[in-house]
């Protein structure tokens, strides 16, 4: 992941209808009965969030013990827009299927083997299928369409032990797992557990993907963590296309190849 920092100093604030008004909207529930005391609590929270002044524009009892609030207020915070360290979208070049196939064939001299699954009790296969199935996503064909990629899509609710076994059996170059359910941070736990199991199963494993298959995780809500935190090599988020994944696989597993 590389970073880019703008050279111009630029301090921004939220925008309602005038530059600098800094207005934002917030909603939340407090576990207290509706009434003026609850409203004061809501304003206290808004204050702690740095909203000053803040107005409760709506409050509604939800049963005897909870109150829902909508608050508008002026954020006192400044954002140093110029100083923002922004993850670059992609640290590798985007290749056509043709280029991907050529890279694998000419450098590897054999098919690149990919094993994919939804692990744990997660049964949301639409995301991983979008990446793997021929049908693909957003107009791009999935990895099965690539002549030089051999895809084993294990489907949903695959246990980690089974995934490791199947990856070994297939002699996988890369393992792609999808995690969509995030309740109680399921996606984080499951992915870490998977990474640990691969580390165990491949004692020669060193960070960077040597000695074990490349580990790739994907799903719509991984944006609060980094790959290293999970023990995987890369994370793909919302709206990923198959071409991005194929290009990444080439960059990571066939690094010596260059499109020229």
């Amino acid at each position, binding site marked *: 992941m590389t970073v880019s920092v703008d050279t111009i100093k630029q301090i921004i604030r939220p925008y309602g209808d005038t530059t600098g008004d800094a207005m934002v909207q917030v909603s939340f529930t407090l576990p207290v009965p509706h009434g003026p005391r609850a409203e004061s609590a809501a304003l206290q929270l808004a204050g702690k969030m740095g909203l000053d002044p803040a107005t409760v*524009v709506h409050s509604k009892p939800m049963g005897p013990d909870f109150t829902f609030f909508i608050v508008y207020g002026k954020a006192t915070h400044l954002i140093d827009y110029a100083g923002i360290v922004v993850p670059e979208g992609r640290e590798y070049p985007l290749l056509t299927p043709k280029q991907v196939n050529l890279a694998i064939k000419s450098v590897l001299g054999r098919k690149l083997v990919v094993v994919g699954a939804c692990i744990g009790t997660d049964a949301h296969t639409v995301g991983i299928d979008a990446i793997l199935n021929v049908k693909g996503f957003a107009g791009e064909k999935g990895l099965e369409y690539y002549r030089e990629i051999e895809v084993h899509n294990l489907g949903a609710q695959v246990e980690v032990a089974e995934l490791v076994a199947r990856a070994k059996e297939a002699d996988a170059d890369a393992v792609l797992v999808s995690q969509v359910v995030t309740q109680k941070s399921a996606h984080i736990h499951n992915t870490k557990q998977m990474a640990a199991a691969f580390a165990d199963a491949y004692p020669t494993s060193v960070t960077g993907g040597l000695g074990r298959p490349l580990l790739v995780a994907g799903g719509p809500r991984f944006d609060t963590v980094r790959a290293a935190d999970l023990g995987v090599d890369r994370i793909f988020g919302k709206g990923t296309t198959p071409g991005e994944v194929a290009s990444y696989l080439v960059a990571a597993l066939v690094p010596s190849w260059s499109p020229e």
Partner: protein
Amino acid sequence: MSKLGLDPAVVAKARRLAARAAEPIIEMARTHTTVSVERAVLRLAGVTGADADGTPWVNRIADAVREQVGLEHGVALPVFHALREHQDPRELVRARFEVPEGAHAVRAGKRAREAVARGIARIDANRAERDRLLGKHGDPDPPWVYLIVATGDIHEDIPQAQAAAREGADVIAVIRSTGQSLLDFVPEGATRQGYAGTYATQENFRLMRAALDEVSGELGRYVRLTNYASGLCMPEIATLAGLERLDMMLNDCMYGIIFRDINPKRTFIDQRFSRQIHARAGIVINTGEDNYLTTADAVDAAHTVIASQLLNERFGHEAGLADAQLGLGHAFEINPDLPDSFRLELAHAQLVRELFPDAPLKYMPPTKHMTGNIFAGYLLDAFFNLAGVLTGQSIILIGMMTEGIHTPWLSDRDLALENVRYVRRAAGALAEDFHPAPGGLIVERARRVLSETVDLLDRVADDGLLNAIADGVFGVTRRPADRGKGLDGVIVQADGYYNPATEILQERP
């Protein structure tokens, strides 16, 4: 093809009663003038600019004439008589005025008429230019999406208006600064200091129209511009709108009376002249019945909306407006807690549609029952948008989920457009599947509102419209005929009153 099965005899009766109620008012308007009507004549005759204090020359001149010889003969004869000697307004205001007689009068009248005719020719040219641009850029199909800008600064308004047009607005309204309608003059020049809105000035009109012409070309769709005529300067603002090719104008026969406490006579006289100008300019007027439902209940007072629309129609026709220029207003303001609120609204909206099949109806979103619950607000706006689609409304103001909180933010407008776009795209031609059940709630409700309208107009025709207004019939606000702002600007025409503008406009082109 009527969906409500309205009885044509009842509809005809309602129209007859409205005409009867309007007649004495029209007679009054024919025989009176106002300071603003006279200033409008000067504007048509080419007088522009303001003195160092910002008071327009037209005000200075009309005041001087009034002081010296009165305005009961109109401003045209004294001024064009004086113009023999003084050409520059700076001098003219210091002239000694007299009402010319005999050959002098004939000569002054002729020159006044020539000057005013040049102004009207410019209005005609603008109308032709609009037609040309509509042909060139394309005229969007109704319903037209109507969006508001209101920064107070014309130079902020312009990029916001262009952005709104790019996001799908067919009509841009520049909201006026809160105080302007009570000013008895039209501010001059480009302004940057408005208050919850931007001043309506000739230069602001020009700048905005030019900006929208630019974006119309870019989008391949003529983007209309609208502003507000109502207020103490209705005739003048209407004139400026014609001179600067605005496309629509808020212009109601009673809005200023009820919501700005402007004197009823003043308003009725001003509205007639301003509508004669609009008629010539090809401008679509938007009336203000929607406002009634912010002070009165939308169910109880539904018939007052219809009655007022029929009056606005009558006054409009008499002033020369075609049906296609009558953007009669109504609004989605029924309390959402009421059972069947949406069906009742469909009844009202469909009734308006069927009563005025050729009018480009202006349909206003919920405002009164919008609270701080922005989700509830977004929902209500969606049903408003749907009602618009189902009943074939023409000009759709875009409701903001934050209506109960603040003037629209950039994101409010964006979300509002997403809302209306979804509803229109998703519902498509759903209106063709909407057929109120015979004898069902919708049909019965529409019939009842129409019959209440007839009853009300019957009473108004008997008691007089001015008395009805004094009694608070419209918008539950009482406005006696001898009170309110601007009454001292009303003048009874003397024998020999001459107004070249009215003369030309009444000849019809």
